[in-house]
């Protein structure tokens, strides 16, 4: 059974431990601005919502890449960027309708969530279980994915 990140914004306190853990895992520094998961603040609602790549089936980034630099990790299902192949053209950053693959000016490559190879550090760091890494058929995750992808028309294949 493949696992997925499950995000429950109702449990998020906005502590940003996930951003710290993510940036440390991927860059070796505690720098939230370089985290691949981002906590958004909703002042009017008094809420926080962590958000990152859902590793969607459409894989817009994979399809848009002109040099085959994004592949699917067979073990985790994560869409993973190969730094060796990425030329930094940024086409994937406009193709991804969720805004979750981004260009890093410090590396000249694009960066995105890779599920830490199957041990996502954001989930490990989250003190309130707002981010968990669980079986992919968990309906909550499906709902998040479905609502995120809903009615993106050119993705739809109709008979």
């Amino acid at each position, binding site marked *: 059974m493949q696992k997925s990140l499950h995000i429950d*914004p109702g449990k998020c306190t906005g502590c940003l431990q996930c951003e710290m853990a993510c940036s440390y895992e991927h860059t070796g520094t505690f720098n939230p601005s370089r985290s691949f998961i981002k906590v958004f603040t909703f002042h009017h609602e008094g809420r926080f919502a962590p958000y990152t790549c859902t590793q969607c089936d459409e894989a817009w980034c994979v399809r848009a890449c002109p040099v085959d630099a994004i592949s699917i990790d067979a073990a985790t299902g994560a869409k993973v960027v190969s730094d060796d192949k990425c030329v930094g053209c*940024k086409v994937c950053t*406009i193709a991804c309708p*969720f805004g979750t693959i981004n260009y890093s*000016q410090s590396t000249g490559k694009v960066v995105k969530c890779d599920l830490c190879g199957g041990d996502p550090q954001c989930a490990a760091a989250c003190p309130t279980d707002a981010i968990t890494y669980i079986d992919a058929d968990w309906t909550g995750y499906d709902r*998040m994915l479905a609502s995120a992808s809903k009615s993106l028309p050119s993705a739809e*294949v109709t008979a």
Partner: protein
Amino acid sequence: MQHIIIGAGPAGVVAAETLRKADPDAVITIIGDEPEPPYSRMAIPYYLIDNVGESGTYLRDPDQHFKTQNIEVVQQRVDKIDAAGKQLNLADGSTRAYDKLLIATGSHPVSPPIPGLDLPQVHSCWTLENARNIIRLAQAGSNVVLIGAGFIGCIILEALVKRGINLAVVEAGNRMVPRMLDENAGGLLESWCKKEGIDVHSSCTVDGIAAAEGELVEVSLSDGSKLSAALVITATGVKANIDLLQGTGIKTDQGIIVDHSMQTSEPDIYAAGDVAQGVDFSTGKHEVQAIQPTAADHGRIAALNMAGQGSAHHGTLNMNVLDTVGLISCSFGLWMGVEGGESAQLYNAEEYQYINLQFDGDHLVGASSVGKTQHIGVLRGLIESRIHLGVWKQRLMQDPTAIMEAYVGCTQELGYS
């Protein structure tokens, strides 16, 4: 079932792969006329600065990928399509029969009629072969004139500057990238380029290019300047490769007219990528977009239909992202706005920061930005999902940078229960 794809660019390769998945037993052939393995023009700027070698521009691993996928790749020029007889005549005199044909022949650079364009110092920047010539002539310290500050012109600026040349850019429009960016954004690009030491001439055209002393040429501009150059690069637009269709009866305009399933006016013949004039998501009209994401989407939709898996798309969204000597800009959809629509913008010239959102009612229909690299794809999501922004419309009017919050707020349960 024999599928033939003419053209080995992204649309053709994505189509071949999609066909292989959809129809494991089909015979699939890609015919391309360039003497290279299938490669990506998007990677050429990075080849010009030696970030990648030639192999870094290849769409797929040329030794393994096509063999593994059982896709035949033929290097030949197609001379004629015989739609009635369902066969192709190749330049070597042979013929190839097909059941379903995909035309993905791309586009070619075009130039205004400027005297001197045939001089050996003048090159376009389109193919790997062009790139090799540019690398040969753009030696450090030499003067280079770039004609055209459109998307392609701008995307190779950095490569040229990094090669240590002295660069002048001539653009006929009143700003840089006029077909992708508005005056604010185009103006930011121009002042950025000037800051980077590039000599920008906008609202200016080239009167002529003439041979000068040594290996140099002299470029005469409409503003009276005369520029000496070792290399002149033309980047003044591209045009769909539709000459091949003469006599076939297939309907063309700027490109090949295709329906929502990427079929041409001829049954069993499809078109995809730069050569195709498909439905634009924003306008509903047929337009040639000539962009990488559209090529990939076209290739996929065409292939599914060729394999008999009915598939229609709702039009492709026009969008671009551009890195101009380190200043990143992008635009989506109806970035110039719609009649009766509203817009919100934030403009900070000193910091080279700009974002402009265009609304029609409570839908986002277009957007552009300069100096933003984070979450820009969500602009596509907001536009293409036709999300009702509701309360977020007003919030975006006040703070147009809150695009990600708007998207997450509109699509996710924030946990009110």
